[in-house]
C-alpha cells in the first residue's frame, strides 16, 4: 500500500513535469499553479480511494470527481454550492469556456495570454492526463503506457510552433517519464526481495545491479540509433540539407521564417531586392484594368529603433468582410475579383492580397486581420498557394480628402500610431506643415518633400534601417529605396499627429498575358498608408517612380517628378515601355545602380531542389555500387587468377621456338613455384566457381576426391568436363604434394570447360545469383566480418580484463565474503 501511494505521488509529479512543454505556449505561469492544484487534488483523491480499497473503476471515478471539483473551484460560474460543488449552471459555464477556448486558440498566438477559456482547457487536459497516468501506473502497473498521454502534451507546442521549439521543457518532461519508469521498476525489485548476482552474492539495495552495465549499453545504443537513424533517411533531414544546398544568403529565406509575428519584413524586403537573380514570386490575375499594389504585410509599431510588424490577429477567412469605412462622397468604390498563384520562392506566413478584400476562396487555416488588412496564418506558409478573393478598390478624390477632420484624440488608432520624438524630424515636419490647414494638405506637403527636385534619389545600396537615427540620416543624405521612403514618410506623418504605417507588397509588375501580372522579387515594395478619418487607410508611395518597376500613382498622390505633365484623372501607371517619368526603364535603372554603386554581397541564388536530388543520385549510385560490388569483385578476382595462369601455358624464360604450349618438356622446364601457384589459383577459382553454383565444398575432401565426386555426380555424361575437372584436381594435388608439380596440360581451358558445364547444369536462379551476387564473395565478406568482429571482441575482452583490475566494484566484491 505504501509503495502504491508513493507511486501515485510519482505519477502526479511526472504528469506535472511532462506538462512543462506548455510553458512555451503561455505567456505567464498561471496555468502551472492551476494545473498543480488540479493534479494534486486528483492524486489526493486517488490515494484516498486506494486507502479505502476502492476497486480500479472506483478509483477512476473518484479521480474524475476530484478533477471536477478542482475545476469548479478554479473556474467558478458563481452558481456553485459552497464554491466547489458544481451545479448545472457550472457545467453550462464549462461548456461556454470550452467553446470560447476554440475561438481563443484561433485568435491568439504564442505566447498566449492568461485567458480563462485557455486556462480551463489546459487544466482540464492536464487533470485528465493525471487521471490516465495514475490509472496506468498504479492501477494497471503499466507505467510505460503512461508515456502516451504524456506525449500528447508534447505535441501541443510542436503543433503550435512551426520551426523551433525550446528543448528544455522537453527534457524536463522526459525526465519525469523516466522517473516514473524508474520508480515503478525499483518498486518491482523491492517487492521481489533480495537481489543476487549470478554467483550468488547478495546485492545491496543501493548497489547497481550486475545487469546495469548491459542496460546502460543498451540504452546508449538505443539513443544513438534513435538520433542517428533519422539523419540517415534523406527525407527527414530535408530542412537541414535545404539550408545548406540552396544558399538563400541574407534574403527572405532566413528572415521570412517563423510565424506571422516574427517576420522582419524590412530585412526580407531588402534581401530580396538585393538578390542578383530575378525570381518569379507571385502570379496575379485580376479583372481590374489598372490594379494598385498587392500587399501582404504592415509595419505599424514604431519605436525608436524603427518600424516593426505587430502580430496580426483576426478571424478565419470563411466569412465575408465588410469595407473598413462606410461609403461616402469622394470615395469611388468598385468590386473586383483576383486569383493569386504563389510560387515556391515566396515563403511566408502571410498571403498577398489587394487592399480591402471582402471574400476569400482559400483552403487551409488562414485568418484575416481587417485592421492591418493582412491575410496570415500561424501554421501554414504561403509557398505554392493558390487562392481567389474579391476585393474593393477605393479611389479618393483629393477634394474629399481635404474634408477629413483630424482624428479625435481618444481614437484607438492614436495610441497605435504614436511616434518617438526625434528633434530633427519634429523640426522638419513643423517646417513642412506650416500653413497647411487640412490633414490631407499636411500629408501632401510631407509627400511632396520626397520629390527629386528636393534632391531625393533612389539607390538600393544604402543601409536599410528605419530607426530614428537612420531616418534622420536618410532625410539628410536623401538617397534610399522604398523602405526608407515609406518609413520616413510614415514617421514624418506620425510626427504630424496623423496615423500612418508602412505597407509591404508588390508593385504592379509586368503583364504576361491578358490580365495576369507576374511579380518577381524586384517587384517587392513598401509604401506608406495614412489614415484619414472617414476614409480609412489611404496609400501614398513616396519612392521615386523611376526606382520602382510598376509604380502606380494616383490623384491624391501623383508622381512628383512628372507633375508638370498633367496626370490623367484616375489612377495611372508610370511603368511600361512608354512610361513617363524619367524615361529610363526602371528595371535597368535599378540594376544599373545596383551594379555601379553596390559592393554589397547579393544572394547567391534562388532556393532550388538540386541539393536533395543530388543526394538521391549519390544514394542510388552508392546502392548500385553496393549491389554490384560482389559481382565486380568476383570478376576481378577471376581475371587476376586467369592472368596468373597465362604464363603457365607459355612459360617465361623458355625459347618458344617450335614448342607448342602443351609440350610436356617445356612445362617441366618451367619454374616449379610458378606452376604450383598457378595450380593453386586454378583450384581456388574452381572452388569459388563451385560455391557460386551451389555445389558442395568440403574442407576435409582431397582434390582428387572432389574431382571424382564432381565427375561422378555433377558432370556424369559430360566426358570433357569430367576430364577437365580431373585435370584440375590432379594439378592441385601435384602442386600440393608432389615434388614435381607440373600437370603437363594448360589449366585455363579446363577451368572454362568446368564453368561452362556448371552453367549448363544449373537452373536460372542459380545462374543469376552466380552472376549478380556470387555466393563465394558473400561468404568471403561474411567471413571477413566475422573475423573482424572476433578480433574486436577479443581485444575488447583483453581491454576489459586489463581495466577490471581497477574497477571499484571489484574491490567491493573482494570485501564481501562469498
Amino acid at each position: 500500500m505504501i509503495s502504491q501511494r508513493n507511486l501515485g505521488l510519482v505519477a502526479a509529479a511526472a504528469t506535472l513535469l511532462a506538462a512543462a512543454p506548455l510553458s512555451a505556449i503561455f505567456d505567464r505561469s498561471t496555468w502551472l499553479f492551476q494545473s498543480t492544484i488540479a493534479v494534486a487534488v486528483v492524486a489526493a483523491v486517488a490515494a484516498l480511494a486506494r486507502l479505502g480499497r476502492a476497486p480500479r473503476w472506483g478509483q477512476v471515478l473518484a479521480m474524475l470527481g476530484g478533477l471536477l471539483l478542482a475545476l469548479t473551484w478554479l473556474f467558478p460560474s458563481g452558481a456553485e454550492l459552497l464554491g466547489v460543488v458544481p451545479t448545472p449552471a457550472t457545467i453550462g459555464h464549462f461548456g461556454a469556456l470550452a467553446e470560447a477556448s476554440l475561438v481563443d486558440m484561433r485568435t491568439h498566438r504564442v505566447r498566449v495570454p492568461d485567458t480563462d477559456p485557455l486556462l480551463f482547457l489546459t487544466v482540464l487536459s492536464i487533470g485528465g492526463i493525471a487521471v490516465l497516468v495514475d490509472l496506468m501506473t498504479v492501477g494497471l502497473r503499466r507505467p510505460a503506457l503512461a508515456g502516451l498521454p504524456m506525449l500528447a502534451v508534447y505535441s501541443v507546442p510542436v503543433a503550435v510552433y512551426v520551426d523551433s521549439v525550446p528543448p528544455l521543457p522537453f527534457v524536463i518532461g522526459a525526465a519525469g517519464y523516466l522517473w516514473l519508469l524508474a520508480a515503478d521498476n525499483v518498486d518491482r525489485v523491492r517487492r521481489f526481495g533480495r537481489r543476487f548476482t549470478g554467483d550468488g552474492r547478495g546485492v545491496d539495495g543501493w548497489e547497481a545491479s550486475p545487469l546495469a552495465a548491459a542496460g546502460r549499453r543498451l540504452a546508449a545504443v538505443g539513443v544513438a540509433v534513435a538520433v542517428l537513424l533519422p539523419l540517415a533517411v534523406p527525407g527527414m533531414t530535408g530542412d537541414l540539407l535545404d539550408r545548406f544546398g540552396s544558399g538563400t544568403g541574407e534574403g527572405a529565406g532566413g528572415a521570412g521564417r517563423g510565424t506571422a509575428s516574427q517576420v522582419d519584413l524590412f530585412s526580407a524586403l531588402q534581401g530580396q531586392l538585393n538578390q542578383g537573380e530575378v525570381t518569379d514570386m507571385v502570379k496575379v490575375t485580376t479583372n481590374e484594368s489598372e490594379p494598385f499594389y498587392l500587399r501582404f504585410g504592415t509595419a505599424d509599431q514604431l519605436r525608436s529603433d524603427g518600424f516593426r510588424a505587430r502580430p496580426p490577429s483576426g478571424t478565419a477567412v470563411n466569412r465575408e468582410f465588410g469595407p473598413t469605412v462606410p461609403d461616402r462622397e469622394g470615395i469611388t468604390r468598385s468590386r473586383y475579383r483576383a486569383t493569386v498563384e504563389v510560387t515556391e520562392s515566396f515563403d511566408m506566413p502571410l498571403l498577398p492580397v489587394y487592399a480591402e478584400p471582402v471574400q476569400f476562396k482559400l483552403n487551409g487555416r488562414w485568418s484575416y486581420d481587417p485592421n492591418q488588412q493582412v491575410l496570415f496564418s500561424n501554421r501554414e506558409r504561403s509557398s505554392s498557394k493558390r487562392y481567389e478573393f474579391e476585393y474593393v478598390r477605393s479611389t479618393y478624390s483629393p477634394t474629399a480628402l481635404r474634408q477629413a477632420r483630424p482624428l479625435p484624440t481618444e481614437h484607438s488608432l492614436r495610441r497605435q500610431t504614436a511616434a518617438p520624438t526625434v528633434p530633427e524630424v519634429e523640426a522638419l515636419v513643423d517646417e513642412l506643415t506650416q500653413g497647411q490647414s487640412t490633414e490631407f494638405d499636411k500629408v501632401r506637403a510631407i509627400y511632396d518633400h520626397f520629390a527629386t527636385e528636393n534632391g531625393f534619389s533612389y539607390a538600393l545600396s544604402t543601409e536599410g534601417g528605419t530607426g530614428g537615427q537612420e531616418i534622420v540620416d536618410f532625410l539628410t543624405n536623401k538617397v534610399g529605396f522604398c523602405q526608407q521612403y515609406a518609413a520616413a514618410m510614415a514617421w514624418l506623418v506620425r510626427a504630424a499627429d496623423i496615423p500612418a504605417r508602412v505597407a509591404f507588397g508588390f508593385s504592379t509588375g509586368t503583364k504576361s498575358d491578358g490580365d495576369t501580372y507576374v511579380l518577381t522579387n524586384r517587384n517587392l515594395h513598401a509604401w506608406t498608408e495614412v489614415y484619414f478619418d472617414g476614409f480609412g487607410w489611404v496609400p501614398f508611395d513616396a519612392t521615386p517612380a523611376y526606382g520602382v518597376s510598376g509604380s502606380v500613382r494616383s490623384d491624391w498622390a501623383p508622381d512628383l517628378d512628372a507633375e508638370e505633365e498633367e496626370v490623367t484623372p484616375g489612377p495611372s501607371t508610370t511603368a511600361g515601355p512608354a512610361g513617363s517619368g524619367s524615361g529610363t526603364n526602371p528595371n535597368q535603372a535599378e540594376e544599373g545602380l545596383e551594379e555601379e554603386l553596390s559592393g554589397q554581397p547579393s544572394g547567391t541564388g534562388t532556393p532550388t531542389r538540386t541539393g536533395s536530388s543530388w543526394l538521391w543520385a549519390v544514394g542510388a549510385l552508392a546502392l548500385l555500387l553496393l549491389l554490384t560490388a560482389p559481382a565486380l569483385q568476383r570478376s576481378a578476382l577471376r581475371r587476376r587468377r586467369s592472368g596468373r595462369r597465362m604464363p603457365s601455358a607459355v612459360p617465361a624464360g623458355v625459347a618458344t621456338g617450335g614448342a607448342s604450349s602443351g609440350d610436356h618438356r617445356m612445362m617441366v622446364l618451367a619454374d616449379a613455384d610458378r606452376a604450383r601457384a598457378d595450380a593453386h589459383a586454378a583450384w581456388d577459382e574452381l572452388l569459388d566457381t563451385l560455391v557460386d553454383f551451389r555445389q558442395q565444398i568440403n574442407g576435409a575432401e582431397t582434390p582428387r576426391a572432389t574431382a571424382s565426386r564432381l565427375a561422378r555426380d555433377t558432370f556424369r555424361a559430360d566426358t570433357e568436363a569430367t576430364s577437365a575437372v580431373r585435370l584440375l584436381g590432379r594439378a592441385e594435388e601435384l602442386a600440393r604434394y608432389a615434388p614435381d608439380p607440373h600437370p603437363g596440360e594448360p589449366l585455363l581451358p579446363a577451368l572454362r570447360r568446368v564453368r561452362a558445364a556448371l552453367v549448363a547444369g544449373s537452373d536460372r536462379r542459380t545462374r543469376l545469383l552466380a552472376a549478380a551476387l556470387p555466393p563465394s564473395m558473400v561468404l568471403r565478406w561474411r567471413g571477413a566480418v566475422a573475423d573482424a568482429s572476433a578480433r574486436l571482441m577479443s581485444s575488447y575482452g583483453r581491454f576489459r580484463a586489463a581495466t577490471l583490475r581497477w574497477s571499484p566494484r571489484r574491490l567491493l566484491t573482494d570485501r564481501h565474503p562469498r
Partner: protein
Amino acid sequence: MTQQTRDEVGGLLPHDEFRAVGDAIVTNIEQVIEGKTATVQLALAVLLAEGHLLIEDVPGVGKTKLAKALARSIDCSVRRIQFTPDLLPSDVTGVSVYNQETHDFEFRPGAVFANLVVGDEINRASPKTQSALLECMEERQVTVDGVTYPLQTPFMVVATQNPIEMEGTYPLPEAQRDRFTARIAMGYPDAGAELAMLDGHGATDPLESLRPVSDASTVRRLITHVRQIHVADALKRYAVELVTATREAPDLRLGASPRATLQLLRTARAVAALEGRDYVLPDDLQALAVPVLAHRIIPTADAQLARRTTDTIVADLVHRLPLPQEHRRSSYDTRPTTDSGRARYEPRRA
C-alpha cells in the same frame, strides 16, 4: 639363411618396375583369394612398409589362405604357428638346448625365425605366449638367455583372429595390437567370386599350384624404394592431426600412439608406390586411416552403447578433419583459430 644388410640392396627402382613387381604379387595372390584386390594390396603394402598384419574376420573367409598365399608368392622362408592355449613362448622364440656333444647350450630358433610368420588364431594362445611376439615384432630380434638374435629381413607377422568366438580366447593386449601395422577384415566374397571359387577350388587346392613370383631380395629392394617416397610437409601435418584427433575425440577412451603415426605414413608410402606414384596423397592417408588406426583405439562406454565401432569413429574423423593447405588460408577453411589451437571438427556447410 643369410642376412643381408640394407646397404647391399640396390637403389631406387623405376616406378614401372616397382609397380610391375607389385602387380605380379597381387595377381598371384588373387589366384587364391578372388575378388579381394584391395585387401590383397593392403596386405602387400603392409609387407613393404615393414609392418605386421592382423587379419580379423569370421571363420572360413580365407584369412589363413591369404596369409599363406602371400608367403608363397614370395620366395622366402615361411613359418606357420598354430596358436593354441598350451603354446609356450619358447615355441615361438626358440630355446637353448644342451648339446651333449659340445657340452654346451645350443640355441634352437623358434618359429619366428623366418621372413614370413603366419600366426593362426593368435588370440587362442595365452597372453604369456602372445607377449613373446612383442620383441620380435617391434625390434625384429629375439633375446634368449641373454643372447640377442636378429631376425631376417623382410620380416612380417601375419596373424589371424576370430572376433566372434570369445570362449577360450585371450584378447590381444593393447601393446600387442599396437604392434600390428594394420588390421584388415576379409569380408565375404561377392556372389560371382564365390562361384568362381567353387569352380577353382572344387578339384584342387590352388594354393598347391601357387608359384613364387618374387624373392626376398626383390622385396628388400622394394622396401628401400618405399622409404624414398616423397611426403609433403602438409601431409605429415595431416597425419599428425589425424592421430591427434583420435586422441581428442570425445568418443574415444584411448587414441592412437605415435607409433601409429609412423606406421600410417609408412604404409601410405607403400600404397603410393604400389600405385606407381613417387609421392603420397592425402587420399592414401584417408584410405589407410581405418585399417591402420581403428584396431589401436578404445571407444568409450558411451560410444560402445551407441553401437559406434572404432571403424566408424575413425571414418567419421577422417570425413570431418579438414585438409591442411600450405598455400593459403582458404575462405572455406573450416578451422577457426581458437586459443587452444584445437580444431573443431564440424564442417561448415558451404
